[in-house]
């Protein structure tokens, strides 16, 4: 039964990815906005426009274009950049443009996950151990404030403190690509710190809510009433039941990193995938935007799927949906 439930969820995941690819393709391809005109500018003659459209494959009907695009995408061919944004020029292979940016973004996301998950989980645990105490209220209020202000304000406050007032860290994270060791860490520090702050606030709130929810369930109440020591309640009764929801929380928050990455890479001019995508949007380089969007949405769908599977595996009741 477990195997079936997990398999079903994986199939749903693939179906979702398929629908997402249709939405992204429709969103960018069927609406007005002609790349040929953008590339050739105002001096374009009708003949050269037609020739370029032919070359870019824009004359096929939409469903053929979608299938061609999907086929290329699945075989790893992300296509050519149409508008030449950032480092690339017109006709650069998109996979060549994306590869180094993807490495940078993964490096940033990895650092953030590595720091924020243990930090946030312990703070969340601390807050939920003493609900209503001063430390709990401090943590709750701080995290509520952080999640309700714009991400760029968090970034700016940290720049104000660490770059302007204290002068410890650079306020932008420019990287030429051949930094090593200490230089790399220095460039990564400010973006990482910002993202850790944003993501931790989310994880802390969700961890606290999850644990409080479990601690108020009847079987824990029963354990308290029959006099089981607190340590034993947490380790023996509640820990196994918390693992599922906590993995869920982590996967969800890693998925939400995506939104934060877009802002943080822009604030610090960090050469990651999100920055490349923003440049693509500004120059209307649709194949580039489609490729980046597919990478981000694919990651998102997979992470949400992991979150769901964690709950299915840890909670037998979800294996037999009514």
């Amino acid at each position, binding site marked *: 039964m477990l195997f079936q439930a997990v398999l079903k969820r994986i199939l749903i995941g693939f179906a979702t990815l398929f629908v997402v690819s249709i939405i992204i393709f429709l969103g960018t391809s069927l609406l007005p*906005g002609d790349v040929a005109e953008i590339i050739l500018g105002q001096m374009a003659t009708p003949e050269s426009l037609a020739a370029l459209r032919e070359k870019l494959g824009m004359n096929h009907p939409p469903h053929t274009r979608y299938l061609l695009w999907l086929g290329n995408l699945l075989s790893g061919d992300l296509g050519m950049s149409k508008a030449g944004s950032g480092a690339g020029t017109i006709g650069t292979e998109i996979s060549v443009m994306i590869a180094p940016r993807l490495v940078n973004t993964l490096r940033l996301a990895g650092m953030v996950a590595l720091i924020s998950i243990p930090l946030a989980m312990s703070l969340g645990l601390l807050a939920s151990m003493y609900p209503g105490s001063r430390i709990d209220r401090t943590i709750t209020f701080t995290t509520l404030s952080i999640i309700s202000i714009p991400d760029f304000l968090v970034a700016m406050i940290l*720049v104000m403190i660490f770059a302007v007032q204290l002068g410890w860290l650079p306020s932008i994270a420019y990287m030429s690509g051949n930094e090593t060791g200490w230089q790399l860490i220095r460039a990564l520090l400010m973006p990482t710190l910002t993202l850790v702050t944003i993501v931790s606030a989310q994880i802390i709130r969700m961890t606290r809510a999850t644990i409080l929810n479990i601690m108020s369930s009847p079987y824990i109440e029963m354990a308290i009433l029959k006099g089981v020591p607190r340590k034993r309640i947490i380790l023996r009764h509640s820990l196994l039941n918390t693992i599922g929801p906590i993995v869920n929380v982590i996967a969800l928050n890693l998925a939400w990193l995506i939104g934060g990455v877009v802002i943080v890479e822009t604030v610090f001019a960090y050469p990651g995938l999100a920055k490349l995508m923003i440049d693509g949007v500004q120059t209307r380089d649709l194949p580039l935007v489609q490729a980046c969007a597919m990478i981000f*949405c694919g990651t998102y769908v997979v992470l949400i799927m992991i979150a769901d599977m964690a709950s299915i595996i840890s909670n037998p009741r979800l294996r037999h949906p009514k």
Partner: protein
Amino acid sequence: MSIDEKIKEKITSFEELPDAPPRRKIRFSIGGKIGIFFVFFWIVMVFIGPYVSPYNEADILDESLFIVPGGEEYPDTDYQPPSKVAFLGTDYLGRDTLSRILYGARTTIGISFLATLLAYLLGVTLGIAAAVGSEWLDMFLSRFNDAFLSIPTIMMGLVVIAAVGSTIPILIGMTGLIYATSVFRVARSLGQDVMVSDFVEAAKVRGEGLWWIITREILPNVVMPLATDFGLRFVWIILFISSLSFLGLGVQPPMSDWGSMVKENLGGLPYGSISPLMPSLAIATLTIAINLIVDDISAHSGGKLSNRMI
């Protein structure tokens, strides 16, 4: 007493029957009261902002205003720190930050409010329809909705803007559509809960029509949680629109809102200028204020609300 009067008395006494427990008054905590103050302040500023601001939003302040005795003869007017001339300093072109924030309130809050209204109009209509309608309709709407929900909002926004560009109507329509998906989920789940309750069952047995059930039984019972959700959704939409403007993909110049003010003044940040900080603090006062009010209201209505909103 005539029969007519008797019937009339019966009807009025029936109407006076308490069909719900008496309303408890919401008690606001200190945080909630501060929240109400700020929200009220910004609502007033949406209407009178341009009339009370010290300068016009586009005015580049004159050098002569900044001359201090013994100082430079022609001082720079850009990135001026706060002074008596400009209470919150000036921006990268030498315009008064305070005036621009007061003018920008109309753009930021206006666009976000219209987008939230649109999201609610679509989301609640379809959500309630899915809750009361046939299983097939519910299935169709929900699957469709799930597909849209599996794309991060900011990605959806970027893809749409890449395709059609960014004007105010597109911005409102797009944001409304994107957030309608999550409103749909909340409205549908609230509606389904009410739909299976005994009093709806009773109404059905009584032979009431579908429209009567929706307007008299379901809507009154979902309106309070939805109102709280409206507040939270409004906050997220403000943050979403501001983020897009901050990326240079939202409100386009010469119009300006709080998010684009942050973007254009970001260059002053390494020099310690507060001009990018002030508009983002304006956003923060508004969003934190709404959150504080929502916190009090949902504590009042049982606090179960947060479970639905993830």
